[in-house]
């Protein structure tokens, strides 16, 4: 019965909205409506991963998943604004196209195969050591010290954090790998 009392026609007759164009026709769901950011467990400060303007972002998280990413109005650089790419950050980090499993392709193989992460890292470490040994150059022909391997190269860094670039450069240089490059050049 209570539901019938909410029948908009009755509310039109008794309320302040005879034509039924607002108050009388509101549904309970409309009254409860609120932004999903209010339900977030936490808001985390972040920076857009796309271009080098460095627009600050606010990442809203609920139950361990990102529910919204938008501009951070506190930033003196971006003043809370984002471009189309930055605005698509939520789609980027929650995209179903993102891979969640390691994929492995054996030499001359025609299909991807599964491989667990720990094995993959171990196999890669073995290959680094083997290739390094096979292609090591201690000195050049007239004895000038080289102490390097030309067998291992790396590409990439512009989309990574400084800390990641640091560990990469530090490890590669210690290993003697010098053909290290990133998007800054291309």
């Amino acid at each position, binding site marked *: 019965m209570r539901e019938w009392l909410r029948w908009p026609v009755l509310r039109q007759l008794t309320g302040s909205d005879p034509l039924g164009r*607002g108050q009388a026709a509101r549904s309970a769901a409309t009254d409860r409506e609120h*932004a999903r950011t209010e339900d977030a467990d936490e808001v985390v400060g972040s920076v857009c991963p796309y271009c080098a303007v460095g627009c600050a972002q606010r990442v809203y998280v609920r139950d361990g998943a990102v529910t919204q990413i938008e501009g951070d109005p506190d930033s003196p650089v971006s003043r809370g604004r984002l471009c189309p790419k930055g605005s698509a950050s939520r789609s980027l980090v929650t995209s179903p196209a993102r891979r969640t499993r390691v994929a492995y392709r054996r030499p001359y193989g025609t299909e991807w195969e599964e491989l667990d992460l720990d094995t993959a890292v171990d196999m890669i470490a073995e290959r680094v050591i083997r290739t390094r040994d096979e292609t090591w150059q201690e000195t050049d022909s007239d004895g000038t010290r080289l102490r390097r391997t030309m067998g291992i190269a790396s590409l990439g860094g512009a989309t990574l954090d400084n800390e990641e670039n640091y560990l990469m450069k530090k490890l590669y240089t210690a290993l003697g790998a010098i053909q290290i490059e990133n998007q800054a050049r291309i």
Partner: protein
Amino acid sequence: MSPDGAAEHPLFGLARAAQPGGDVRTSASGPVDSPAGGNRLSGPLADPSAEAGYSERHPERMGFFTDTSVCIGCKACEVACKEWNLLEEDGLDLTGMSYDNTTELGATTWRHVAFVEQRIDPSTRARVDIGMPGMGAPSTTPEEGADSDATEVRWLMSSDVCKHCTHAACLDVCPTGALIRSEYGTVVVQDDVCNGCGYCVPACPYGVIDIHPDNGGAFKCTLCQDRLGSGLAPACATACPTESIQYGPLDQLRQRAEQRLEQLHEQGMTEARLYGQDPTDGVGGDGAFFLLLDEPEVYGLPPDPVVTTRDLPAMAAHAAIAAATAALTVAACFLGGRR
């Protein structure tokens, strides 16, 4: 100091002063005039929320002012809107309409950035629509005579959105009460009520609202009704890099638009004009109005939209007469003999 008292930071002045929230709870635009009187169906109406039954404590009427003279066509508004409202993509088709591959507003596209490339005739300064080269709107081939590289090009960009009209035809014709006036004076679809009758679609003089092809409901921009409730600006206004989309109390926006128009006219851009800010227009003025740099139809907007509810009484009268005519005709047919 901006009118509503918020300290105006030299750089943050615009963005912050526009935030709605508790402090603008009591409408700053003076006492609510009585909703009664002739303007219930069309014509100027100062407070649509009051007319829709909301108490005096309802917040100020909020809206959009889209200054297309500073729009850089980046489409951040389109993406921010889809990301907030979780709208799916609707078609990966190259349209050939300059950089507009979105084509139009619709059930899963509540912001649409239009792109119009125009050639400015060096001699007459007239703007010539290039339209779709080879087909489409009247396309004129550049005369070879003019020094071709002296040809100036103009590229109009404008982010289109629901107009949240003072008198909204979609709201008026909606038989289920799904479309309602919100406490902020905006027009929103209540998805839990809409039964997909589709009457709002041909009723909208701007061609905004549409039926979702899969779930059958009617959808359009809600001016982020949920965000407003939480004291946030709409997603598109939050993202817009150049503040082409300005959100705020409609009265303030109308003042700011007048100043901007004056400024542009002083700079010689006489073709700038406001569209939808005049309460005496056919829909009683829009809640989301524009500063355009050419005729509205060049952007796909109607030159003089009218809410047809204005003519409803007349139409009802005609229908009644016709109905009576029908009844009398039938009756007349029974007067004669049995032959």
